[in-house]
């Protein structure tokens, strides 16, 4: 599966990519929401995993933008964040996020979720 991984922290992004690539997925990395949108348009991923707090464009704004994009309505979006607040989560859901996962993530759990969202 082609996955777009958006995180402003390089190490985390690398860790995420590594974990996904290990499981046989193709990963495209982006540094923030705006970068993510550009990459999304360019490479049409089948799944997006995005951080929440990022400069330029955060994860919720990205989700909203993606859902408004004609190609972005059928792509599951997972928000992977340290945030656990119910309000933020609700906001993410309203923006159109498919799933919410809390960092630090357990690779197996993340991969299981990814597998679930793969159709």
């Amino acid at each position, binding site marked *: 599966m082609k996955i777009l991984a958006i995180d402003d922290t390089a190490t985390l992004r690398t860790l995420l990519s590594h974990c996904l690539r290990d499981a046989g997925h193709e990963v495209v990395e982006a540094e923030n929401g705006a970068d993510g949108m550009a990459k999304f348009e360019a490479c049409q991923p089948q799944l997006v995993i995005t951080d929440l707090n990022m400069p330029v464009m955060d994860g919720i704004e990205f989700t909203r933008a993606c859902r408004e994009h004609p190609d972005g*309505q*059928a792509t599951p979006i997972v928000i992977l964040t340290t945030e656990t607040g119910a309000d933020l989560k609700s906001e993410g859901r*309203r923006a159109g996020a*498919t*799933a919410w996962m809390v960092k630090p993530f357990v690779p197996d759990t993340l991969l299981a979720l990814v597998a*679930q969202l793969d159709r």
Partner: protein
Amino acid sequence: MDPMALLKQSFLEECDELLSALERCLQEMDTGATDTETVNAAFRAIHSIKGGAGAFGFTEIVPYAHGFEAALDLLRNGKVRVADAPLGLFLRTADAVGACVGAARSGQPAPQFPDLIEALRQFVSGGGAAAAAPVMPLAAAAAPEPPPVEAACGHHIRITPHDDLFRRLVEPPQILQSLETLGEPVLTCDVSAVPLLAALDPARCNLRFDVMLDSAATREQVEDVLERCFDADELAFISPAAPAVVSPPAVVMRGSADGMTGSVSGAAAATAGDEAMPAGSAGYEAAAVAAPAVSAGDSALAAARQLPLMSPLPDASGVVPTLKNRPAMVRTIRVDLDRVDRLMNLVGEIVITQSMLIDRSRDLPVLHALQLTEGIEALTRQTRELQDQVMAVRAQPVKTVFQRMPRVVRDLATMLGKQVRLATCGEDTEVDKTIIEELADPLTHMIRNALDHGLENPDERISAGKPVEGVVTLSAEQRGGRIVITIADDGRGLPRDKLLAKAISRGVMAADAKPSAAEIDALIFHAGLSTAEAVTDVSGRGVGMDVVKQNVEALGGRVTVESEPGKGCTFALSLPLTLAVADGMVVKVAGQRIIVPISSIMETLQIANCRPGSLPGGSEIVRLRGQVAPLIRLADLLELGGSGQETVVISAETDRGEIIGIAVDEILGQQQVVVKSLEASFGPVAGASAATILGDGMVALILDIDALPALVARRGQRPQPDQPVLVPHAA
């Protein structure tokens, strides 16, 4: 009534049947039956209830059924001996399910028996340990031990998603999948909030889910998983121990009743029900000892059971009639077949009236027509159901005939010195009773034939490289609107040269004829053409297959044969499933309306889209799904004149699997038609299997798809028809 409500209704009725079957099993177990079949039957009954309850949104039934099923499973796989089963608990659970079914039927809120669910849970989680607890009287509440809070091994989660669930791309199967890591989830979907099609926005989610998760996981673990895809406010954990409807004041019940010796420690105890309880009634005392936590509704039920059963019980307490106070169900009655036939005829008359109403409704102003149509649609469904039900009254599984055959085979095999195995399948296929009765003789005859003529002697089989043991397969299946019964053997196949020689010597076939293999095989149905070299006791007098053919045709059926030399021979009897009402497509051909049975239709196409062409010799062909098929212009075939108006081709399959294209002028609609025999009132009509009366009182022919290819061939040979073609007139 909308179809869903109808379905729900019939499910509830099914529940009654299943419950009485269940109770029967439990009683058998109570009287000492320990065989696995009884337990299996009980298990199947509760399993069916559970599955249906989930599917139809009667979620309140599911927890009982689920617990019950799990408990019976312990018996089924031998973890608990039947003799040790807590039958009192089982009977009460059956009653509780019965009460829920009753409540669902009357639209009342379901009564709650949390103690039962708990007791079942304990029984199951203890691996049947609770079985040692005293068996409670039926009228009593049963909960062996108050549950340790931590021991909960299941969760009931109600998921009420926001209506943007689909926009978020969360798909319900994911819910189930994500829980599989924790245990065994059972998901039921409540579709009651889904609006009608006209108002349906497919992007909005109107579903609600109930998940029963059989798992040792803690609530936090379950939350963790579910909250990945859901907001906290979309999830509700429903505590099994707390009744959701009324929470009675938490009062510790003290030993006020005589004989109450056990300590009562449950937090939620009976209060409201207490008052209704006849004081000092022996049955209840015993129960109270073992029942620390009894909810209000439950004890009221227990109490109500002790009331005289003269008047309907009050509904306020959520009490509904249960198994115990329902009159014992009469299992079977004997009814004169004539009465059933009369019923069937009446259904036919209703169908005619119904099509008349549909016809008339077309002349009404749109608004009125719409309202009427709604009613008529409901009526249509109900007549269909009525018809099915009447047919079901007459239906019997072919098993009744099939089970006579092993004996026939065994006796005959011994006599012939052959080794034969009879394989049967589809014994549960149901066929009209009259047909069943008429089937026994033809089947016996064909089985005898297969053994005597079809299968070789053991020596012959060995030298042909076949296993010594011959196999005769008897199978029944429903195909379209027909029942097809096949008798196949793996013997030598039909002796074509002998058949042909005999046919020529008897003058059945011209000496210079060049018949195809199939035509030669079909000679087997010709009177007086037995090919057995010696007449034996078994078969071989040549009064065989022709009689079979006659019998089968008298039933409105057909018999065909397929044979492969050296490999075996298969006879197929194709019989009509229903003789009374059929679904038909009304088409127009040269001004006449003709009914094409829906069961034979595969698709309809514009004539231009299937590239009609002609072969040298004049016969026309069309291409249907890449296959070349003969094109039959109905107007020509039935000699109605005015051909060339055809715009539509109906692709149909005959019972031999041939695909034919039938060209008609126009498709007028689709309706149920009453099948009226032509033979009885008029005489056989080529190309028509029967006639019907349309809504405007006109007669229309029902096309006999299966006979068309042969009719075309005949017409090809003889330009002048020798049979009259009926031109329908007003009835």
